[in-house]
């Protein structure tokens, strides 16, 4: 067998040609370190977000006000756990174990979506999270179905199918609350007030302030820019809010002549405060995960040891 060693430059040319031809990069394919590291960061951050995102909703399962809503919420959180599982599996194909990813999370070296550092304070938050947070996530994830890394793209296809249910279920909660008593309407508006801006921040900094966008776009990891996706989400969501009588908490929101909306300025100080660990629930969310993982150590060890028994 003839093995021809290609130089790094030649490999890069081949890699980029594949990407330009819209072919997927697979785990055993050669890829630049920068591409691999970008994916390690992005997919694990995505996986951690799904898992940490179980907490604000998990907080309400035992208080869900009807059996139907309890079932839907449980199933939704279970979906999130499943998404975490697909994504950790996709991330592991890059040569890093799940255990390592979790350790990086616990050490603060890996991030998760800052939106989950907001507290879930009333039942309408279950609606707002589904409608807005999952709605923002799906806007981003639809474009990621075409991402260049095969395992990530395939995970996204499955995830998107489920996320669209979540968004509709979340909106249904908001709609029911707005059809309900004055207390319920106030809860719904309060939830929107608190989740609107964090949802817009989910798309990340403005394109002009997003240092990693360049290569990620060139290598088709990201397919659309932060600002494009954010605007898409805003334009989709505002009519939904208005339809059920909710007011978008943005006094500077402008309806443009072409029928699209321009939102007021996002408070990026809040965003960075949150990203840097000082949001309302950062410590709580991480401590919860560390506690569960630590308390589960003896269970994992026993399961492992028992594997050698008959």
């Amino acid at each position: 067998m003839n093995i021809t060693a290609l130089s790094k430059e030649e490999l890069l040319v081949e890699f980029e040609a594949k990407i330009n031809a819209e072919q997927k990069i697979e785990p055993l394919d050669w890829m630049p370190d920068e591409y691999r590291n970008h994916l390690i960061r992005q997919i694990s951050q995505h996986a951690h977000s799904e898992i940490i995102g179980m907490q604000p909703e998990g907080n309400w399962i035992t208080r869900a006000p009807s059996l139907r809503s309890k079932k839907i919420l449980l199933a939704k959180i279970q979906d999130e756990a499943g998404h975490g599982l697909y994504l950790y599996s996709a991330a592991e194909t890059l040569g890093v174990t799940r255990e390592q990813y979790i350790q990086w999370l616990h050490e603060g070296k890996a991030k998760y979506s800052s939106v989950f550092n907001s507290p879930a304070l009333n039942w309408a938050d279950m609606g707002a999270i589904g409608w807005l947070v999952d709605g923002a996530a799906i806007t981003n994830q639809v474009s990621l179905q075409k991402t260049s890394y095969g395992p990530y793209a395939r995970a996204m296809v499955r995830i998107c199918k489920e996320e669209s249910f979540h968004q509709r279920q979340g909106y249904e909660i908001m709609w029911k609350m707005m059809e309900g008593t004055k207390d319920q309407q106030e809860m719904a508006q309060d939830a929107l007030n608190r989740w609107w801006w964090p949802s817009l921040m989910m798309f990340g900094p403005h394109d002009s302030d997003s240092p990693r966008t360049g290569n990620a776009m060139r290598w088709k990891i990201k397919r659309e820019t932060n600002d494009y996706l954010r605007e898409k989400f805003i334009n989709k969501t505002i009519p939904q809010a208005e339809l059920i009588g909710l007011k978008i908490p943005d006094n500077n929101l402008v309806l443009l002549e072409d029928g699209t909306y321009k939102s007021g300025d996002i408070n990026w100080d809040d965003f960075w405060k949150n990203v840097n660990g000082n949001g309302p629930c950062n410590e709580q969310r991480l401590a919860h995960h560390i506690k569960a993982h630590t308390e589960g150590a003896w269970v994992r060890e026993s399961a492992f040891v028992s594997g050698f028994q008959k």
Partner: protein
Amino acid sequence: MEAKLKYYLQIADNALILSHRLSEYCSKGPFLEEDLANTNVALDLIGLAESMYIEVARQENEGRTGDDIVYRRKETDFLNVILVEMPNDDFAHIMVRQFFTDVFHQQFFSELRNSKDEFLMGIAHKSIKEVLYHLKRSSEWMFRLGKGTVEAQEKAQVAINKYWKYTHEFFLENDTDSEMLKAGIGVDLSLIKKNWLAKVEEIFTMSNLTIPTNDFTIEGGKQGYHSENLGYILTEMQFLPSKYPDAIW
């Protein structure tokens, strides 16, 4: 309330309260796959409970909904066994509580498939499929804990010793059970007990775990007298409908 509907409630309340405890554990599992399995079981149990509450509401025909029965019922009207109220002390307690209940459900629903009551017969056929999965999982965990590390074996045995006295209530035949047995609707709990014990012995023997030798019993749930835990469970579960009685969710 007629005996048959009380019988329905005994089954439904066990499922609902255990499901509540499992829901509390969501996002706290020892690893992701187990977290998923835990919520799967919680969902199955809510599904079972919900069908039964809806049927109770339909048959009693007093204008209540299934949700009213869950959310607007007082503590002493809940008829679950005390075991399912026990808190999630650690993974061993959660899994031993689950294993005891799964074996009971397996035996109970197997027999209930012969019920003369069409609704119960249907529920039994549907539930047994789910319960067999639940039991497979909890039996495997008995093995993993009992035949794994010394620490895990000890924790599992502590949980078994603690919960054993609550298991007798599964088989305690109250007036409702007797009436249903006579009518060919309910199952013979003495038979269930025999089969339950045999299954528990089989799995424990395989798993280096021991059945306690004492015969102490703690019971009362099936008569509406519960542990202190149920008050807290219901306070949390019924919080929104209690606070906003006019709201429709």
